[in-house]
Structures are given as structure tokens and as C-alpha cells.
């Protein structure tokens, strides 16, 4: 059998000299020698013994060269080659945070919560006062560009949107609609409570999911980053399942001095249950479910290998904090009746 050197090199993807090839083939008990030829074509004459009935085609000879060369020896060159190979250029990656969020969405829906999708924008009033929270002006991203349509004498408002915006706009009743769009929410709760408020005639209980799960990953081992990250977590009233029943998952925007633009998105999950009673233990069950589907075990307080629940006061005796590997990642509890009144919701 006569095999060309270019065929062998071409299929294996290496550059071997004819002397190397004949050496390898002889090692494989295929007696090979270079063929004397008048043209530039470099051929190898292979004498195939009768015991090698599997050698049918030049590709079988090529394989023997590859075996003698070593499949694992080829490996060392491949990573570099592959990166430059335009044939295999498609090597794409999806964002892990989005992938995990989609997995959690499906799991929460499987246990009977319905997903909702509401607006990012909300009024400052909804983001803080109606949730019985104080605006410490360290979280909300405030929109200023809507003011461009206002008349000249209000241009000054743009310079101080945080403190002046409400004062001035409340005097202009025909612009009241802007009040609802002056902040980017720092919590998923306003949207989820609005869903309940606008579905009062829907049979109770309502179980709604909205948004996506916070990414549970190990924090990188940079001390400074850890501190900043923990501080951010502690500062937020972040939610695994806040209130009752309805669940929502989406991004929220918070102020963050670590970022070049001064703010970042956090991925969160919120859920709410609304019915004849508050359903605290149902939301607690949802917390357990989400943890189980992330492979996180339930542990005793203080144990850092999993998660546990500890008490935190909100509506006395009915709010809790979720501690995951020693870090506070969420809270759940009964929505305070004053907040329910603020959103005009008649059921707890």
C-alpha cells in the first residue's frame, strides 16, 4: 500500500518528516520505507502483514502513525490550535446568573406559584414610605431626565433631584404622573404588591412568583471585596421571600460606590401569599424548597455549612432572616398591615 506523507500529516494535524513516519510505522509492525519517486510527491510504501486484516484504507495507516505518535502527545498543541481555528469558532457561553435564575423560576412554579412580570420603575413613595421604610438616600437610583419637558423655571430641580423633586412636582398637579416614575426600585416588593392590589377579585389565595433568584455563589477570596459585598448585603432589605404568596424575580438597581457608574443590579427573588390568613408557614416552606433545590442543607443556628432561620422584628414575632453560610441573604415575614393599607389590599 502506498500512502502520501501529506495525507498522514493532513489528517492527524501534525508536521512529521518522512523519517519519523517510517520510524513510527515500523514500531507498529508495519514495515515502511520511503518510495523513490521522480516527482516532488513524497510517498511511503507500507507492507501490511496478513495478520492486520483491519488495514483496509490509507486512513488505517494514518491511525497507526497517530497511535505511535501518541494521542495524548497531540493534545498539548490542540488548545492553542483550537483557539485559532475558524472552523470551530462557535464556542459561546450563557451567563451563569441568568441560567441559574431560569432554573429556580421553574422550580418555584412547579410548587404552585405563578410568575408575574411588573415594572422596574416605581415612585419613591412606593419604594420607601408605602413599605414603611426610610429613604436614607443611599440606595435609590433616581431618574432626572423626565424633567427635560418641564418649563424653564424648573430646570434647577434637575440639579437636586433627590431632595427637591417631590416638593416641586407636587405643586404641579398636571405632572403628578411623574411621581410614579421618579425612582428605579431598590426592592421587588412594590411591583409584587401592586399585582395583588389589582387582582383583588381573583380567587384567593394568590401565589405569584416574580423575578429571579439571587446568585448563590462563593464570594471571591479578596478581603476588601468581601467586606464591601457583605456591607451591601447587610444594607439592603434584600428578599428571598418577602411578605406572602406572590413571588417575583427581576433585577433591582441600587447605589454602589464600587461601580464606575455608581450603581449596580442585584438579582433577587420575591414571593407573596395572600389569602384569608397570612400564610407565614407557606412562605417558610418556599424558602426551604428553594434552598433544597440549590442543594443547601438546613442546619442549626451558627453552623456555616448551610442555612438557618433567625428571628427579626418587623410585625412582632413574624419576620425572619435567612442566614446562608454565615451571611444574611434574605428576609421573610408577614407584610405589615399598614403596608397592606397603603397598597389598598384588603386581605393579609
Amino acid at each position: 500500500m502506498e500512502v502520501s506523507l501529506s495525507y498522514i500529516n493532513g489528517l492527524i494535524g501534525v508536521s512529521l518528516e518522512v523519517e519519523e513516519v517510517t520510524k513510527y510505522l515500523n514500531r507498529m509492525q508495519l514495515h515502511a520505507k520511503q518510495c523513490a519517486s521522480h516527482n516532488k510527491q513524497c510517498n511511503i510504501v507500507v507492507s501490511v502483514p496478513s495478520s492486520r486484516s483491519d488495514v483496509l484504507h490509507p486512513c488505517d495507516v494514518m491511525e497507526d502513525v497517530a497511535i505511535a505518535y501518541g494521542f495524548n502527545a497531540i493534545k498539548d498543541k490542540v488548545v492553542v490550535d483550537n483557539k485559532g481555528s475558524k472552523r470551530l469558532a462557535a464556542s459561546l457561553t450563557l451567563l451563569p446568573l441568568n441560567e441559574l435564575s431560569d432554573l429556580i423560576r421553574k422550580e418555584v412554579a412547579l410548587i404552585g406559584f405563578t410568575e408575574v412580570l411588573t415594572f422596574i420603575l416605581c415612585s419613591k413613595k412606593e419604594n420607601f414610605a408605602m413599605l414603611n421604610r426610610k429613604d436614607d438616600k443611599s440606595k435609590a437610583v433616581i431618574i432626572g431626565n423626565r424633567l427635560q419637558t418641564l418649563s424653564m423655571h424648573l430646570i434647577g430641580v434637575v440639579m437636586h433631584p433627590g431632595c427637591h423633586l417631590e416638593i416641586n412636582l407636587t405643586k404641579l398637579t398636571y405632572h403628578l404622573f411623574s411621581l410614579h416614575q421618579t425612582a428605579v426600585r431598590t426592592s421587588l416588593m412594590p411591583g409584587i404588591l401592586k399585582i395583588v392590589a389589582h387582582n383583588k377579585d381573583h380567587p384567593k389565595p394568590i401565589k405569584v412568583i416574580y423575578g429571579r433568584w439571587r446568585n448563590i455563589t462563593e464570594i471571591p477570596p479578596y478581603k476588601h471585596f468581601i467586606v464591601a459585598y457583605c456591607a451591601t448585603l447587610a444594607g439592603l432589605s434584600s428578599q428571598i421571600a418577602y411578605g406572602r404568596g406572590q413571588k417575583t424575580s427581576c433585577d433591582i438597581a441600587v447605589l454602589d460606590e464600587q461601580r464606575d457608574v455608581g450603581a449596580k443590579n442585584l438579582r433577587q427573588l420575591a414571593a407573596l401569599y395572600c389569602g384569608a390568613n397570612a400564610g407565614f408557614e407557606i412562605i417558610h416552606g418556599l424558602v426551604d424548597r428553594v434552598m433544597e433545590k440549590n442543594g443547601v442543607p438546613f442546619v442549626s443556628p451558627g453552623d456555616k455549612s448551610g442555612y438557618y432561620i433567625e428571628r427579626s422584628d418587623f410585625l412582632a414575632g413574624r419576620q425572619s432572616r435567612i442566614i446562608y453560610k454565615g451571611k444574611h441573604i434574605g428576609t421573610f415575614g408577614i407584610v405589615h398591615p399598614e403596608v397592606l393599607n397603603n397598597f389598598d389590599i384588603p386581605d393579609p
Partner: protein
Amino acid sequence: MAEEAILGFLEKNDEIRDSGEFAAERGIEHNEIVNVIKSLHGFRYVDAQDIKRETWVLTDEGETYATVGSPEVQLFLAIPQEGISKEELQKKLDPSLFKIGCAQAAKNKWVEMGKQLISRKVQHVDDKVKDLLLQIQQGLNIGSDEIKALKVRKLIIPQTWKGYSLKRGPNYAPKRKKVVTDLTRDNFQSGEWKELEFKEYNYSAKGAPLEGGNLHPLLKVRAQLKQIFLCMGFEEMPTNNFVESSFWNFDALFQPQQHPARDSHDTFFLETPSTTKILPEDYVQRVKHVHESGGYGSRGYAYDWKREEANKNLLRTHTTAVSSRMLYQLAQKPFAPKKYFSIDRVFRNEAVDRTHLAEFHQIEGLVCDRGLTLCDLIGILHDFFSRLGMTKLKFKPAYNPYTEPSMEIFSYHEGFKKWVEIGNSGMFRPEMLQPMGLPEDVQVIAWGLSLERPTMILYGIDNIRDLFGHKVDLGLIKKNPVCRLGID
């Protein structure tokens, strides 16, 4: 009543020093006070500190002696001045009284036990035992030696009195709020919630289990693998046909008709429908020829190829049958590079054990392009398996009738601390590709593995029947975490 007394008292005073004294002053039963204190402490209206006092109380025997006198005194009084015979004395007294009385009186040297008579040795005795018992009954203190003596005779036993001293607690209020377990529509709409207090919630227990469904772990892994293939630019092949022709399953892949895999003990051949009706005839002729006589640079297998053998229907033994169909269709058009994948069920006539089933899911990927090399195959395997978390690979030569070269893929498992075979791979033979009509410089690289094995490793399952089939525990499906292959 007791509750109001306690809360009212603490409103104007810093503490209640002794709940026993407090109960006595108020004319309230101490037990009632104690029960109320426990409840108030539980709701943190008050801070309660335990008070324990150990006292002695009389046994029944002790009560008797305190009333009628100790047995030794009674015995002494039963003896007349001149003495009395033992028999007569026994008749006078209760038997146990006689026994105890004799022992104690002799010990005290009050009497003499003579041969004929029992007589007094002293004229007068004091009943100390009775006096001590009466003192204890009145709550007076007595010496420890005397306590010990009485205790030995089982006339007294210890009793612990428990009480509390109280101060205002963090939740103190002059009057107790109503306690409920939940915020309800009724107490919310009536505004009553402002006055309510909630019972303590047990946070060391889990919440209520929620009814709902769960996804099967094997199919969760399949979904993640599909995502990985899409990210690498592969499109999915249609594998929705379990019945296949021997032609596409074996012959088109240049597998000889006498190959052992085509024996009935390895393949499920079908009784109905038993034969294939339609095949592309010109392609069949080229396949027949390349099997018998070779061509395209090959010398073939040099055997007599039979159409009836190729026409036999079977349950496909690998998804490469679909790959051969796809490549054939590709060859009927002007050539364009392609990347295909599939993940679906295949069937083998195999004995079932903890790691093998007669049916399982095969994962397959292939790339069809001009000028592909073994380097490209190895490169794409590294990319694919690193997304599954397998970063250390090595390859071993293997034989497959339709690929050349053929490589087994091994990965080092950090948990098992050993190399584990994870798949098979190779480049399709020219005898398979060129009869289809593909150009001579077109190469196809491909690899395959099972879906079950990595899933078992990922989730720590060591029996395949615990993962797949009708004996699977539904509890496992419920507890199984999401699959994060390809996600960090």
C-alpha cells in the same frame, strides 16, 4: 386575677422578691401564681429568676409518730413498774411497733431484756423523736445530725419548693395583650391587629411542605447538556424514531454484516414491522460495492453483502444511525459545513445490572467540514468536557468499524481519585463518507457518551435503576437539586 396582681404590682415596684410571700400576702394559691409567672415569662412580660428552697416533710410513718408518739416510748409506757413477760408485752402492742420499739428502747438503754421479764431501767423518758417531728412539721430548723438520724429511720423525706423572683421584662405592659397565631382577614380588616401579639414561632423547624411537582434529574441534566451544545454552535438532529433499518444503523456506517454487534444477542430485531420498505437505491448499490470490493482507496471487506440483511428492522443501537441519515442528506446538496448533536434513547440487548440497562440515553456530537484533523477533534473534546467540569482528559486507541482513528476518552475524577472512561470518539471512515457523495476533502469528527453515567456521578447515585425506570424513588426526584452543568 393572679396575672393582674403581678403585672399591677410590677407597674409601681421594681420587683417581686419572692413569689411565695407574694402569694401569701395576696391570699392567692402559690401554684396559680407560678403558672401565671411561667406564661408571662414565656411572652417576655416579666423576667423570672428561679428560687429553690429545700425543706423536709414527714412520711406517713413520721406523721403517725408525731401524733401518738414514737414506738420506743409507747413500748416503755406499756411496761409496768414490776416488769412484764415478753409474751404479754407482745400481746399489748402492734407487731411492727413491738419490733421497732424493742430495738430502739434497748439502744437507748431504757429497758432490760431479762430471761423472765422485760423491766424498766429508768423511771422516766423523754420522747425526743416526737418533738423533732413536730418541729419539722412546723417548719423550724433542726440540727443536721438529727436530720440524718430521722432520715435513716425513713421518718422524713426532702422536698424542694420552687418559686420565682420577678422583674419587668422587655415586653412588659400593665395588661396582657391578646395572643394569636396569625394575622387573618378578620383581625386585619377590623383593625384589631394593633392590639395583637403573636405567639413565638419555632424557627428551628422547617416551614410547611408545599405541594407541587418536580423535574426528573436525568432530564434536568439533558436540558443543561442541550444548552451546552447550543452554546458551542451545534444544532439538534431529529432523533424521534426508535425503529431503524439495519442499513442506516450498520451498513451505511461501513460495518460488516457479520460484525458481532449485529448478532441477535446484542440487537433487538423486530418482528413487526420486520423489514425496511424504502431505501435510496443508488446509494445502497454504492454501499454494497464498497463493502464487497472497496473503492475510494479502500480494499473493502471482501465478503458477499446481502440486501436481506440490510433490510432488517431493529430498535436503533446508537444515535449514529441518525447521524448517517443527516450526513447523507447533507451530501445531496452543495456542501456546507455542519455541527450536529443529539441526546436520545438507544436500545441494546444487554443483561441489566447496576450500571447497564437495555435502554439508555446516548449523547452524540459531530462536526462535518473540509480539512478537519485529529487535532480539531481533540480540541473540541476539551472544550465540551471542560463545560461538564472535566478538565483533565486523556485518550486511548480503540477500534470501531466506522471511525478511524478511534479514541476512548478518559477523565480524571477527583472524587474517585482515578481515571474514568467517559466516552468514545473518532473520525468517520472515508468508506462511510464518500459513498454518500461527500467531497473527498470533507472530514467528519464525532464523539459520544451516555447521559446516565455522568448524571450518576454528579448526583452520587450508584445504581442506575435508582435513576431511571419504574423503581425510581419519587423522594429522590423531589429532593434532587437543579443541575448546574455549564453554570460556573
